[in-house]
C-alpha cells in the first residue's frame, strides 16, 4: 500500500516540480501584486468579466437586442426580464450585454491606434527640433478644441459607423499621447547611452528604434490605458448626443439617451447601462493608475 503511494508520488513529483518551475515566478509575482496593488487585480478582473460578456454575448441567455415588444414595455426587473424592458419593450439585459461589444471595441482600437501613432510622432517631435515646431503646433491646435465637439463634428459629417467613430475619437485624443512620448524622448536623447551609441557611429533610425523607443514604452502603456478608459466614455457621450454609431446597434450611450424620457418611472433603463459603463471605465482606470505606480517608481512616490 505504502509502496504503491510512494510509486504514485514518484510519478507525480516531477510534474509538480515542473509546474512550480514554470509557474513559480508568476505565482510569486501574483502574490506580490495582490499585496501591493490589490486594485490592479480588481481592475483586471472587471475587464476580463466585460470581455467575456462581449465575446459570449449570444450565449448569455440573451434575446435579439433590437427586438421590440410594445405590450411588454417598461417592465420592472424581475425573473422574466432580468434588467427590465425599455419604452418599446426591448430587453435591457440583452442590450446591455451586447453593448459591451461596441464599448470595448472602440476603447481598445483607439488605445492601440493612439499608442502607435503617438510613438511615431512623439519620436519625430522629441528627437528632431525641426519636426518639433510643426508637429507640436498642430497638436496644440487640436487640443485647444474641446475634444467632444471635434469628435461630434467629424462623426456627423461622415456618418456614424464604428470605424468612423474610432477614427474621430483617435483624432481628438492622440495629441495628448504625443505630448507624453515627446517629453520622455526629450530627456532620453540626452542620456549617456544614447550619446555612446551616437559616438560609435550608430545610424539615427537604429538609435531611435533600439535606444530611445524602449524608454517610451512604460509611459506610453500608462497613457494608452487611460486613453482606453477615456475613449469608452467619449463613445458613450457621442452615442448619447446622437452623433455616435447608428442607433440600431445596441450601445450604452444610446440606451441611456432612449431612457432619459422615462427616467421618472423607469430608472433602470438608464441606471443599468450607466452602471456597466461606470464599472468598466473604473476598472480600466484602476489598471492604469496601478500600472503607473509599478512601471514608474519615481512617479509612484508622488502617487499621482
Amino acid at each position, binding site marked *: 500500500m505504502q509502496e504503491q503511494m510512494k510509486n504514485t508520488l514518484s510519478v507525480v513529483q516531477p510534474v509538480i516540480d515542473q509546474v512550480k518551475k514554470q509557474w513559480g515566478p508568476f505565482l510569486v509575482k501574483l502574490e506580490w501584486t495582490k499585496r501591493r496593488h490589490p486594485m490592479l487585480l480588481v481592475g483586471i478582473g472587471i475587464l476580463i468579466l466585460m470581455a467575456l460578456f462581449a465575446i459570449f454575448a449570444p450565449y448569455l441567455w440573451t434575446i435579439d437586442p433590437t427586438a421590440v415588444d410594445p405590450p411588454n414595455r417598461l417592465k420592472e426587473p424581475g425573473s422574466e426580464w432580468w434588467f427590465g424592458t425599455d419604452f418599446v419593450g426591448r430587453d435591457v439585459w440583452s442590450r446591455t450585454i451586447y453593448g459591451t461589444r461596441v464599448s470595448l471595441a472602440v476603447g481598445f482600437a483607439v488605445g492601440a491606434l493612439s499608442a502607435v501613432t503617438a510613438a511615431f510622432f512623439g519620436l519625430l517631435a522629441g528627437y528632431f527640433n525641426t519636426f518639433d515646431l510643426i508637429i507640436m503646433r498642430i497638436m496644440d491646435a487640436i487640443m485647444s478644441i474641446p475634444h467632444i465637439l*471635434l469628435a461630434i463634428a467629424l462623426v456627423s459629417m461622415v456618418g456614424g459607423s464604428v470605424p468612423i467613430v474610432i477614427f474621430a475619437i483617435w483624432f481628438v485624443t492622440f495629441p495628448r499621447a504625443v505630448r507624453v512620448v515627446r517629453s520622455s524622448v526629450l530627456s532620453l536623447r540626452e542620456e549617456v547611452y544614447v550619446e555612446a551609441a551616437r559616438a560609435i557611429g550608430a545610424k539615427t533610425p537604429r538609435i531611435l528604434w533600439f535606444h530611445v523607443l524602449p524608454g517610451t514604452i512604460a509611459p506610453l502603456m500608462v497613457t494608452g490605458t487611460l486613453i482606453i478608459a477615456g475613449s469608452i466614455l467619449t463613445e458613450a457621450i457621442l452615442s448619447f448626443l446622437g452623433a455616435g454609431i447608428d442607433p440600431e446597434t445596441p450601445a450604452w450611450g444610446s440606451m441611456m439617451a432612449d431612457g432619459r424620457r422615462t427616467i421618472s418611472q423607469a430608472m433602470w433603463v438608464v441606471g443599468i447601462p450607466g452602471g456597466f459603463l461606470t464599472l468598466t471605465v473604473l476598472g480600466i482606470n484602476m489598471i492604469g493608475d496601478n500600472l503607473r505606480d509599478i512601471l514608474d517608481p519615481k512617479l509612484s512616490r508622488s502617487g499621482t
Partner: protein
Amino acid sequence: MQRYLVQRILSSIPVLFILAVIVFAVLRVSGGDPAAIIAGKDAPQWQIEAIRNDLGLNKPVYYQLGVYLGDVLQGDLGESINSKKPVVTLIKERIVPTLSLAIMTEILTLPISIPLGVLAAWKANTWIDRGILIFSTLGFSIPIFFLGFLLIKAFALELPWFPAAGYVPPEEHFGNFLHRIILPSLCTAILFWAFLVRMTRATMIEVLREDYIRTARAKGLAEGGVLITHALKNAALPIATVVGWGIAELFAGIVVTEQVFAIPGMGRLIVDSIVRRDYPVIQGCMLTIAVLQVIVNLLTDMSYALFDPRIKY
C-alpha cells in the same frame, strides 16, 4: 510686462491660425452639402446649384478659406446658413448661460477640491488618502450625463429641491437663476473635482518632501502654517496651470451638461449647428472657444507672478 504680453499674444496667433485651418478643412473635406440641406430633400439640381453659388461654395476651397480668414480678421464671423443671423449675434446670445455655468462650476470646484487634495497629501498613504483617491477615480470614471441623470433623479424627482431642467437669465430673476444653475454646475464640478484633487495631492506630496518644509517644522511652526504658507503657496503654480488648461475640457463637459439639463448655451448651439451642417456657426463657435482658451492661458501665466514673487514679466 507689456513686452511679455505682446510676445504672448503674437505667439498665440499661429496656433489660432492652424486651428482655423483645421476646423475649416475638417468641415469642408468631410462632405455633407449644406446647400442640399437648405434646399430640402426633393429640390431640383439647379436650385441647389443656385444656393451653392449664393454661398460661394463653388469657389475652390483655398479661396473660400482665404475669404473666411480675411473676414475673421475684421471681426466678421459670417452669417448662419439656417437663421440668416450674423454668427457674432448668435454667439453673444448663447455665451452667457455657458459662461455662468463655467464660473459656477469653478466656484463649486476650487474651495472643495484644493483642501481635499491638501488633506490627502498631508495624510498620504493612510485610509483618508485612499478614500479620497478612490472617490476621485470614481469621479472621472462616471460618464457626465449619467451623473446628470442621477442628480436629476435624486434632487429633482425624489427630493423636489431643484428644478429638473431649464435656464433663467440672471438679469431676469437672480434667485431663480441660481436655483436652476446649481444642479448642472454640480454635475460638471464633480468631474473637475476628481481631476483637481489628484493634481493638488501629487504636487503637495512633492513639495512636502522639500528641505524648507523640514526647516519650518523644525523651528516649531504649527502644522497648519506649514501646510498653507509654506507648502500650498509653492504648490500653487502647477495647480493654477491645471485649472487653466482644463478650460477646453470644461467646455466639453458643459456641452453634455447643457444637453442633459436643457440649457440654451453655446454647447447646444454647436451640437444643433453640427446636425444642420451650419458651417459658419460651427467655425465661429470653435474659434471663440479657442480664443477663450488662449486668454485663460495668458491669465494663468500672469497669475504665476502673484504666487511666486521671483517671477516677473
